């Protein structure tokens, strides 16, 4: 059984402009010790999904349907008390900006110790000792001294390690990291990813939310690509990067600059993410999709197996490669071809064809 099973999750924000469908029929699973990447543009619903799993959505956001099962337990029916024990206990969360995720008025050691006290029966000195050993675990040098310092005395990378230490205090099975490296420079980012990598080796499942495809490529086992609140492609990481199937994924990949690139301009995906209060009809990506046809404006494509078989149910076939594009739907009125392809320039030339 998967550790985390999200199926048909719907999240809406009720604003003055109307209901915004922030997450739309999203399904994914995450096994123990697995690393799942969730990528997409800003506003694709990545963070909202993470918050929904933890039951942290605030007004005006509301979960309108679907189910979130953690270790077989339905979280949407869980009591507030149970959710509180779950947060930080079984599911830890790491935030984007470590400088603001730490409370400026307490020492770092005190903040880690607080997390320890909330989730274990350690008190006083025992909690503090555990805090110091957690700081040591996340690679902070001289943890005993550093524990007595305040967050402003930490660099961004060190502060993010503290945030990870706090998330680990309850000895969680799942770590949700919401863009944990976005505010850090690349060397520190690499160190932090090494740390997460190391932690994930200890059977900790990691859901890494990111818009950095490079980070996802280097860290994750499987990837969910989100666009406008929907999962548009779900695949093992190799398949996603070498054989992208959804035009949006292909667009994202082509927009990455590469060393030795001789293009004058990076290709971009034209347009912007749609207003989710009034999403376009049919496929949400069609206004920006170079391959869009009439059929795309009429029918919202389901996540289909890229071999052509349609599956409406969110079954546990998590390892497969699926994309939400009419090109993979058999009975769709889609005649064209997705003629993008991936060229691998370092010797071995294995072109992945994008057409069905």
């Amino acid at each position, binding site marked *: 059984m998967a550790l985390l099973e999200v199926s048909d999750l719907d999240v809406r924000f009720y604003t003055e402009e109307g209901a915004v469908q922030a997450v739309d029929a999203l399904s994914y699973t995450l096994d123990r010790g697995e690393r799942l990447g969730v990528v997409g543009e800003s506003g694709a619903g990545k963070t909202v999904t993470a918050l929904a799993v933890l039951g942290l959505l605030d007004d005006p956001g509301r979960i309108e349907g679907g189910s979130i099962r953690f270790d077989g337990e339905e979280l949407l029916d869980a009591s507030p008390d149970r959710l509180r024990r779950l947060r930080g206990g079984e599911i830890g969360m790491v935030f984007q900006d470590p400088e603001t995720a730490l409370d400026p008025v307490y020492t770092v050691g005190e903040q880690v110790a607080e997390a320890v006290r909330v989730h274990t029966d350690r008190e006083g000195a025992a909690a503090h000792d555990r805090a110091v050993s957690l700081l040591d675990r996340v690679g902070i040098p001289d943890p005993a001294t550093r524990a007595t310092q305040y967050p402003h005395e930490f660099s961004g990378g060190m502060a993010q390690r503290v945030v990870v230490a706090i998330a680990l205090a309850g000895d969680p099975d799942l770590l949700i990291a919401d863009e944990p490296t976005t505010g850090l420079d690349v060397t520190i980012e690499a160190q932090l990813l090494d740390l997460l990598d190391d932690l994930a080796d200890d059977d900790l499942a990691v859901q890494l939310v990111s818009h950095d495809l490079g980070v996802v490529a280097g860290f994750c086992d499987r990837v969910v690509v989100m666009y406008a609140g929907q999962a548009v492609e779900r695949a093992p990481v190799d398949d996603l990067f070498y054989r992208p199937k959804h035009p949006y994924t292909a667009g994202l990949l082509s927009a990455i600059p590469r060393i*030795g690139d001789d293009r004058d301009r990076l290709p971009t995906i034209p347009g912007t993410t749609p207003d989710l209060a009034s999403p376009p009809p049919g496929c949400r990506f069609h206004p920006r999709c170079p391959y869009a046809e009439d059929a795309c404006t009429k029918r919202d494509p389901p996540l289909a197996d890229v071999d052509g078989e349609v599956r409406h149910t969110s079954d546990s076939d998590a390892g497969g490669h699926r994309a939400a594009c009419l090109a993979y739907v058999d009975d769709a009125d889609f005649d064209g071809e997705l003629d993008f392809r991936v060229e691998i320039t370092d010797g071995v030339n294995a072109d992945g064809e994008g057409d069905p």
Partner: protein
Amino acid sequence: MPRNPLDGRGRLRVRGFESDDADGDAEAAAATTPTTDRWRRAWTRFRRDHAAVAGLAVIAVMALLAVFARPIEVSGVVVQPVALAPYDPGASGIAPAYRPPSLAHPFGTDWAGRDVFSRVLYGGRYSLSIGVIAVSLALLVGVPLGAVAGYVGGWVDETIMRLVDVLYAFPFLVLAIALVAVFGQGFWKLVGALVAVGWIGYARLIRGEVLGVSERDYVLAARALGASDRRILRRHVVPNAIAPVIVQATLNVGTVVLSAAALGFLGLGLQPGTAEWGSMLSAGRDTLVGGEWWVTVFPGLAVFLFVLSINLVGDGVRDALDPDADTDTYREAR
């Protein structure tokens, strides 16, 4: 073929930069800097502000004079035997009425032949304790109510803040006068009236701060950690929202002492004849015509000095707690 922008320009090579310092040294050096909590840092900044320190010294002296003016007895046991005031502040007829200042009576005597110097010293007990107690109690009421209103929101917020709005519609002093007029005179009734009109300011101030602090990431982080709302409010929200309230409360001690004096002057404060500064001013107001200036000038000066000092301290506290405020940069620039 990939094109290297540096092709044909020669290679860069820097020599002599090899260092045998280990990477960890920088971190280790950072770790040895002594760490200070924010109250100690605020105190360090406060001490640099000479006017505020002078104000604090004046208040300390006035407080000490008030404490040591007359012996203090607690249920029959003398706990403080020193008597700086030469005469009993309540004793009348120790000298002829309306004697100008002299060596025996430095501040002269009033209509009943009471020693004004002794009364001014002793009066500090009332004024200072009213200021401190009324402000503390108002904080105890206003901070929890305002913090809960801001954090919980919804109908709780509406209820509390509409009550605050209603109370705000009355002028501060008029409401206090009305309360004293209804409930009668006396030390605790006076304090109660000042608290009843004083807490609304703190409630409104901290509610606004809490609204801002609640949006911070560390509050979300604490929730993601599974901390309870009460714990988050008490440990994370209020400590981060309290600084402006402390500044306001410090400055308000002066306002409250003035209000107590004003109520005393209007005859609504303590019992007539009490050696409270405002009541002394009130009792002596007829003497302004007769030329016996010392009866009113000395208690008035005491009020003035105390309120001025507390304002200096309040400004210093604000600069110490919020180093980005304008006055601080102005002082630095001087």
